[in-house]
């Protein structure tokens, strides 16, 4: 692939590389737009794409019923899939980058499991970790536990002699601890509460509302430029700490800064939609395979691919069994993982 362009000028070779990546990003964005429209069209009342686009562009001209279904019921869910998919994927790509480990993701570092434990406390026993937020007790609990988990990882990474491998190991240990605690809760909780906990951990977009969407979007909009600003430094991290240092990057400081930002992204996401482990691991890998390490393309690429996977998952969750919305966490894993395995087993360039 690269040999074919090897004969040209260095700059020409680089422009070709950049052009290809811009086209891939545009393709992903287009696919995402199509996916969101399809997502909006599907449901108990089915519309065609023309109706959806008309309802989106000229809401005044369509019937009230169509407008309410599109804008009030389906839009928050469809856009939540986009925002959460992008957030989890960005969190995953930066965790993989700063820890230089292909296994790092919000799920494997225990942030999702922590959130699940927080949610289970609320669902099973009505324990509110933050007393005043009664309406939002489940997401707030999940968020608090997810942030505490991140803080534990953050605290550990401050210690001398702790390598990035150690951090990943600690994350996996935390996953096991939280799983055990979840089992303990389910053992003591009522049958009804157990069902609620289990449903929460499957991940679901159906609880999305406009206010939740705005919160998630605000965090994403704040985090993305902060990460983009560190683009060259983050790209250099993939050359290894020693090489990055020699280019003027301070790996420890960068690692901490980025860990705080992505923890917030991941915590907000899982607290609103539950455990969707797959996106934060796979979105980044797909983006890296398509676009390479350069963060100027990898960061938006990871956001788009994560959003696309979750949006497509949302569509599939409605059409696999008509009339039933299968929890999104199940769909993305069952459909996405075979696709992911196909990709990593058939790739031409080693990405890790």
């Amino acid at each position, binding site marked *: 692939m*690269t*040999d074919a*362009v*090897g004969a040209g*000028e*260095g*700059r020409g*070779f*680089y422009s070709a*590389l950049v052009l290809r990546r811009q086209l891939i990003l545009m393709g992903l964005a287009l696919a995402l737009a199509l996916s969101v429209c399809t997502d909006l069209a599907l449901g108990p009342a089915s519309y065609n794409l023309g109706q959806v686009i008309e309802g989106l562009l000229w809401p005044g001209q369509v019937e009230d019923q169509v407008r309410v279904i599109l804008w009030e019921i389906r839009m928050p869910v469809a856009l939540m899939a986009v925002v959460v998919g992008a957030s989890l994927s960005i969190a995953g790509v930066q965790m993989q980058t700063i820890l*230089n480990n292909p296994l790092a993701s919000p799920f494997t570092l225990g942030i999702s499991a922590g959130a699940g434990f927080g949610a289970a406390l609320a669902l099973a026993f009505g324990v509110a970790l933050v007393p005043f937020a009664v309406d939002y007790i489940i997401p707030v609990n999940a968020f608090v536990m997810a942030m505490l988990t991140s803080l534990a990882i953050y605290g550990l990474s401050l210690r*001398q*002699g702790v390598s990035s491998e150690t951090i990943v190991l600690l994350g996996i240990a935390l996953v096991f601890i939280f799983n055990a605690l979840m089992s303990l809760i389910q053992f003591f909780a009522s049958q009804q509460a157990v069902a609620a906990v289990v449903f929460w951990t499957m991940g679901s977009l159906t609880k999305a509302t406009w206010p939740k969407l705005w919160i998630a979007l605000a965090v994403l909009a704040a985090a993305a430029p902060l990460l*983009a600003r560190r*683009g*060259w*430094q983050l*790209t*250099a991290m*993939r*050359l*290894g*700490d*020693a*090489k990055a*240092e*020699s*280019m*003027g*990057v301070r790996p420890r400081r960068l690692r901490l800064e980025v860990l705080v930002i992505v923890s917030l992204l991941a915590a907000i996401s899982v607290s609103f939609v539950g455990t969707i482990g797959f996106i934060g691991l796979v979105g980044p890998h797909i983006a*890296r*395979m398509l676009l*390479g*390490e*350069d963060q*100027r393309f990898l960061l938006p690429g990871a956001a788009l691919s994560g959003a696309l996977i979750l949006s497509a998952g949302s569509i599939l969750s409605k059409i696999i069994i008509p009339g039933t919305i299968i929890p999104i966490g199940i769909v993305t894993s069952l459909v996405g993982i075979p696709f992911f395995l196909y990709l990593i087993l058939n790739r031409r*360039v*080693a*990405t*890790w």
Partner: protein
Amino acid sequence: MVSLTLNAVSAAYGGRQVLSGVTTPTLPGGQLVALLGPNGAGKSTLFRRIFGLLRGGGEVRVEGATVPRPLAYMPQDNGARPVMTVYESILLARMQGRGLRVTSKDHVEVERILDLLNIRALRGRHVGDLSGGQRQMVGAAQALVQNPEILLMDEPTSALDLSRQIDLLALLHRLTREQGLLIVVAMHDLGHALRFADAVMVIGDGSLVACGATGDVVTTDLLREVFDVAARIEPCSMGSPQLIVDGRANCLRANCQQIRRSA
């Protein structure tokens, strides 16, 4: 012209002193300095201390620099395999601390360095697919593209074939002459040091054993005491001094004190 002076420089790793009291005369630009010393003597530590990656006592003084970041450091290869072409990895080294927009001047610089090191043909290859020697050439390019006035290179020739070792060292030597750079190269090949280095610094057990003009420092005594080899330095038929190694000296580098006193 730029110059580097070390004054009682020390460094510690987790409470253990790994470098102590390194004091050199002022090393002016326009020369190639070989940093010599056995494995584990503290060569890489000294580089990291000079470059500012390690804290410690003493003073690293850089004078006469005309750019904001006069130092560049080429660490030893760490075997990372990023999904990145050679061209991108060199551009990346140049873009650190700059905006996200790549200008045509950046491309001109990258292309100039590719040609300087004669690795233009590698530019589209992925860094992870390169051989050890090719990676070393890319590492040298990443350091040079930062346009340093003082360049610290940690064993840049260790994986190169003989002709490329000579090419690279000759290029570095030429850069010191043409651009007034001060280049400090850690190396194990004493023959190369004799041939290319204007001066040598010798490190043993975390302290400076000797520092001075190559011919004055690299002596039979030093080779025996620091490197534990019995060797001679004699002129070849062409008249240049050559190193002839007779074998191990087996004095287990008992002390470097004697040489340190006389240096």
